[in-house]
């Protein structure tokens, strides 16, 4: 049997899944729910503050390191889920899932470099 190339994408899946488990609930909370509940002052998300916070190279690096693996984690898991739900056209599913993740990766780079 041929050697599988799954480790390539599985490594990103595992890394992204771990990252998401540690940071995503807090990110969603602080950027959406916390504001609605009044835990986070709305000024915290204001433009001046956001751009100042995101312009430091460290913040850019962190944003990239969080966003990209989690995106690929979701893409890979959805590919498997499509098969679980009876969609057996794996080639097409792969193209869509990984394609969106690749575009998202490029968009993240563009955004971060443009800040």
């Amino acid at each position, binding site marked *: 049997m041929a050697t599988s190339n799954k480790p390539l994408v599985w490594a990103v899946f595992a890394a992204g899944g771990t990252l998401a488990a*540690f940071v995503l609930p807090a990110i969603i*909370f602080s*950027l959406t729910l916390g*504001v609605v509940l009044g835990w986070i002052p709305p000024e915290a998300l204001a433009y001046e503050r956001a751009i100042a916070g995101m312009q430091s190279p460290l913040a850019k690096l962190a944003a990239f390191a969080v966003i990209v693996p989690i995106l690929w*984690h979701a893409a890979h898991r959805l590919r498997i889920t499509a098969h679980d739900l009876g969609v057996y056209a794996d080639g097409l599913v792969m193209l869509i899932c990984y394609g969106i993740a690749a575009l998202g990766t490029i968009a993240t780079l*563009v955004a971060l470099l443009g800040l």
Partner: protein
Amino acid sequence: MIRGPYVRPVGRYSWWLSQPRYIRYMLREVSAAFIGAYILMLIVGLLRLSQGPAAYESYLTAVLSSAGVAFGLITFVFAVYHSLTWFRVTPKAMPLRMRGKAVPPAIIVGAHWLGWAVASLLILLWVAV
């Protein structure tokens, strides 16, 4: 003896509805749809941020609209479910042995919960203060 093995059909689209544990599994997997969409939303946010104050303000309005908040709430629930299921199985994937003895899974899970709490606190503080 006559052999004529009978193969029972498997529901290609519906198998996961047949047992509660399969439904729980499917909920865990579907979390990826919401998590993926939320990440794409964050990427859009970064793009809008790089396009200036007006673009960013309209993005923020959309995120904090009732639809945006509803989406955030659902994704939050799925994200927490993802964290819980992910940490629960971590000791299976990465068992630890110390001085020839297996570290109890509960300790490994507990350590991850602690790390989760610390990371969450840091993120909240970074955004809020």
